[in-house]
């Protein structure tokens, strides 16, 4: 490299942006390099060969279209025959691909090998002429004058007021996007869990006897009353808030708690909302050894032994715990609804 490495900062070639200086390069623009003819330009045989290549590609396209028809009409897919479906899909794909690539590559090759390859220089037009701009500005001024908007501020001000107000109905009319009877944030505080509602397996709906749960097991449960909701959307919305994970651990593994939470578990059985407090994915993975719950969406990790405290990941709050006990027949039931809203945090949550 030597002394020439970085050049002379004071040299002529320094061009300050905005000065509009455009020459000063080491050599002047030499103009377009001389055109070099292609083989097909000078050798008629080569041109013939290119012609044959292009039409061969067009022929491949025709074969592709035929292949599509074979896939569509000849391959018979009987209901549920996935192998034949796959074959059909492959043939349709290859057929269209050949049909299109044949035409596309053919035309491109035609352009490359046979159409003129002389580069042409065209001058750029200036984006605008000054006289056009001046005339346009004059026209606009005339138009504005003719409206008299400057002389009559009352017109202008009332128009601005009207124009500002007029779009509002377009916004207001969207109000009925949510027509629920219980509209508002209060509904987010409740789920369909209440005292005495049995925890049942999903989707079979069978209730769970505490004695049947082995230590280390985890069950995904819903309230028994969920199936009573007949309307599909309502049922999904109710389920989206009330899904619960039921975990049985050694009672000693559970960190000791005081106050009313003391009675929220039953012989090492503990229940929590399955809806992540981060952005609401189902917290679906349980690691028995460490009693950690992991959300597969964003890897928030909760410790079931410590009231579902967050131990890693983006969640900012523990999973809400569902207070449980057993009824007279020994089936697990809720003691009450969740004592806090489940799912992701929202502004009005408080």
């Amino acid at each position, binding site marked *: 490299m030597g002394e*020439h490495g*970085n*050049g*002379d*900062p004071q*040299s*002529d*070639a320094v*061009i300050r*942006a905005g000065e509009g200086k455009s020459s000063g*390069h*080491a*050599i002047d623009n030499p103009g*377009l*390099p001389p055109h070099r003819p292609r083989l097909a330009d000078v050798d008629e045989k080569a041109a013939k060969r290119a012609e044959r290549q292009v039409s061969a590609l067009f022929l491949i396209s025709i074969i592709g279209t035929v292949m599509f028809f074979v896939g569509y009409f000849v391959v018979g897919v009987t209901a549920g025959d996935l192998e034949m479906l796959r074959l*059909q*899909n492959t043939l*349709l*794909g*290859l*057929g*269209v*691909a050949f049909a*299109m690539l*044949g035409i*596309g590559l053919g035309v*491109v090759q035609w*352009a490359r090998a046979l*159409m003129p*390859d002389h*580069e*042409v*220089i*065209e001058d*750029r037009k200036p*984006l605008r002429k000054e006289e056009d701009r001046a005339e346009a500005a004059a026209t606009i001024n005339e138009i504005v004058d003719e409206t008299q908007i400057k002389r009559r501020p009352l017109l202008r001000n009332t128009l601005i007021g009207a124009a500002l107000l007029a779009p509002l109905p377009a916004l207001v009319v969207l109000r009925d*996007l*949510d027509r629920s009877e219980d509209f508002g*944030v209060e*509904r*987010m505080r409740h789920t369909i869990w209440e005292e005495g509602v049995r925890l049942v397996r999903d989707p079979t709906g069978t209730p769970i006897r505490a004695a049947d749960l082995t230590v280390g097991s985890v069950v*995904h449960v819903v309230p028994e009353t969920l199936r009573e909701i007949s309307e599909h959307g309502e049922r999904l*919305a109710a*389920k989206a808030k009330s*899904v619960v994970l039921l975990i049985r651990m050694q009672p000693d593994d559970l960190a000791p708690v005081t106050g009313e939470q003391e009675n929220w578990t039953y012989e090492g059985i503990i229940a929590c909302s*399955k809806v992540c407090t*981060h*952005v609401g*994915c189902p917290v*679906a993975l349980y690691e028995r050894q460490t009693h950690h719950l992991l959300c*597969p*969406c964003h*890897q928030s990790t909760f410790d079931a032994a410590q009231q579902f405290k967050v131990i890693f990941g*983006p*969640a*900012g*709050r523990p999973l809400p715990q569902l207070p449980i006990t057993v009824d007279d027949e020994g089936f697990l039931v809720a003691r009450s609804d969740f004592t806090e809203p489940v799912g*992701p945090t929202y*502004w009005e949550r*408080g």
Partner: protein
Amino acid sequence: MSTQSLEPKYTEAQYSEVDQYQPATRTGRISNYVDQRVGGTGLVREFGRKVFPDHWTFMFGEVALYSFLITVVSGAFLTFWFDPSMASTQYEGSYAPMQGVEMSTAYATALELSFDVRGGLFMRQLHHWGALMFVMAMAVHMLRVFFTGAFRKPRELNWVVGCALLVAGLGAGFTGYSLPDEVLSGNGLRIIDGMLKAIPMVGTYISFFLFGGEFPGDEVIPRLYSLHIFVIPAVILILIAVHLFMVVVHKHTQYPGPGRTERNVVGYPIGPVYAAKAGGFLFVVFGVLALLAGLFQINALWNYGPYDPSPVQAGTQPDWYIGWFDGVLRLMPGSIGDISLEFVLPTPWGGNSVALPVLIPMIPIAVLLLGLFVWPFLEAWITGDKKEHHVLDRPRNAPGRTAFGMAMMVWYFVMWGAASSDLVAVQFSLSLNDVIIWLRVLFFLGPILAFIITKRICLALQRKDREIVLHGNEAGVIEMLPHGEFREKHNRVNDYELFTLVAYESPEVTPARPNAKGKVSLLEKSRAGLNRVFFEDRVAPVSREEYLEALSHDHHESSAALPAAASAQLESSKH
């Protein structure tokens, strides 16, 4: 008011000229018919031979355009069978594992399209691959435009239109992704719901209005459908029209090289060469997408089952272009030490919750997206460059911009990669938590390293260019000089190649200047600071003196023949 003259501006002969012409050929007849009604020949005259520069990097925009067209056409096909209703139904179609399962009509008709409509699976896959390609091509096209400086005056506004197209493309992709109403996309919507709810004051209500009540309800799919097949495509089409109109107004940019100046366009005329290449390329893109749709399965929605708020698969991934939204959510810790980042703001009515772990990740997303929109104006402000540019920068010749672009790319890819943190951990047997922690470090360190490294690489490449200009290419031949010295022979490059290496501008730092009051404002100081980051390290282009000196050096010392042009230049400089 002056009296209006009735004196016509055009003569009667000019009006009747159009009826006098007697077409003799078929082309003449057709063009005459059209011309007498809409006057189209002017267009042909204007555009038939318009020159268009040719370079392989100019094709990404075309790929985006063609992918979009193919996606529209295949999407229209899908609408004939797909029914976006969330009404409950029992699946009775031919896919055995789902028979008898209760599901929404949307999912049932998506299955029907895949299994019972001939070619339906192919069209669904073509639509999905087309959409992925559309966003991908837009992204690569924007990178090309960014790194070559094609966004500079007069094209800033067209860059903004392009950014809007990218955002609209993301919207089109996400609304479409959510339509089949299976477990995977349902969880995607669940995440959107969670993010909306985190927005202070209005977020909860936006969620209510989007879902028609509490999540998920039975309204959201038809609403997304309206957006997906009508509103967003209309927006995209209008933006594309504006985008292409501006390309015509500005004429295309061109790479620097012999014969090219700021005042001309060098390339092939539209008819026939460019039209054939571009038109042929539409078919090539279609062919490649058809190949993907025929051979590579995408979104196997029959495996997921109907949406239900309780299950989710491990290793769920969004489509690639949504990945960075998801990844940055994963990177954010919910608490620092034992202090949760979620807190309740005490207010007179009882307190409001602030979900910082969801809100903070929206900052880098907003910074990147907004930064994209304002970059042309920001760069012009930093550099003070108010000139028109039609000749592109070679990325190495704008080290500041190139380095900054790479830094932002690395930042983006860290977030994007984080969306696969769990898969990375599983594939490479790493701890899930370690992967996230490393990515958190890279989130801050990566862009800085990328900036420094890229800038150094650019400067090194510029030095190499200087070396080639001053001494030529290494020939790989060792010569022994009469006095016994060994040295490697260098071959001078010809003037055409040389010009490409020397013809660029290399601005110097413009220090802060005082304003009219003689004060250097804080804004001006920060401009000057950024300007220094851009231009402080610079390798000057070879100047005429340096070049001539190198030539005469060669002339005296070596017997190597100079190219004719170089000799002539040397001779003329002596007189």
